């Protein structure tokens, strides 16, 4: 009986550990490593158009990967900052890439129009792309270098210095 109880307890602990968002990328970046961006070749539908795109298609560019949703208030605050960064990055062969997270398509499209976002936004319909980045709260932003490696992570609302770092990376590499 006690063996069965121990098995159930072990199963519960395993379940909790697997359900929690992964912070492996954060740990690697904190140690100074530059892990490859996961699921880079995963093709996702482009918001507002019939096509699809992937992170791998942007290899060779500095990418600011931003997970967002229209219902997320900090995402509304940082949207103008991201659009401003997009203009600067575009001059140095970089780009912002938005990925919507648990958002209704119509709401996401309205958000893009409202904030005049000129960069591409993908729709992570299955949630697997966001899960690979350990995304469970919004907004979350990743700076990816020209070789497709993650160099910085921001979980929460981004500040201008974080985006300046991406622009500097694009300008100097």
């Amino acid at each position: 009986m006690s063996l069965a109880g121990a098995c159930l307890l072990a199963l519960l602990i395993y379940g909790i550990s697997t359900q929690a968002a992964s912070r492996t990328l954060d740990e690697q970046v904190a140690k100074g490593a530059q892990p490859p961006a996961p699921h880079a070749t995963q093709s996702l539908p482009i918001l507002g158009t019939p096509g699809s795109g992937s992170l791998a298609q942007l290899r060779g560019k500095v990418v600011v990967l931003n997970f967002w949703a229209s219902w997320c208030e900090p995402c509304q605050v940082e949207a103008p900052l991201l659009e401003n960064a997009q203009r600067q990055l575009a001059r140095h062969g970089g780009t912002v890439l938005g990925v919507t997270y648990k958002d209704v398509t119509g709401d996401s499209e309205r958000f893009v129009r409202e904030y005049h976002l000129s960069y591409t936004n993908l729709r992570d319909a299955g949630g697997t792309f966001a899960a690979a980045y350990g995304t469970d709260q919004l907004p979350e932003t990743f700076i990816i270098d020209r070789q497709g490696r993650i160099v910085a992570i921001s979980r929460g609302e981004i500040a201008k210095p974080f985006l300046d770092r991406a622009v500097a990376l694009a300008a100097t590499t």
Partner: protein
Amino acid sequence: MRLARPAAGLLCALMLAVPAAAGAEAARVSLPVIERQVMCVTCKIPLNVAESPQADREREYIRSLIAEGKDEAQIKDALVTQYTSAVLGLPQTHGFDLAAYLVPVAVVIGLLALLIFLLPSWRRRSAAGAGDEAGALSPEDAARLESDLALFD
């Protein structure tokens, strides 16, 4: 004329029944009904108790689907399309979630196996116990029992 009365009655009954059925159908698909069956996908709790900006958007989306005349199944399909199957709050049939289906079955099988294993020994013990009790009566007690029983004759 004799036939006309029952026919008119039947027609009236139908006229009353059809809107009532339609009304019942419309009443079934309401926000509270759907809210009870789906999850707030970011808070991971049932939508009817969730308070968050995402939960509010989810409710608005459900309201818009109801307004479009969608039925319960269509609304759930639309929610799954937008938010993945996580919105239904059902464990998936692969990976760790499979344990949610397998563990209860394993527990029931385990309990049945335990019962099959223990039942014969319980029976033997109770039968032996009954025999022991009968044999355990001392001659004095047996005599007292006899005399007590004789009082009732």
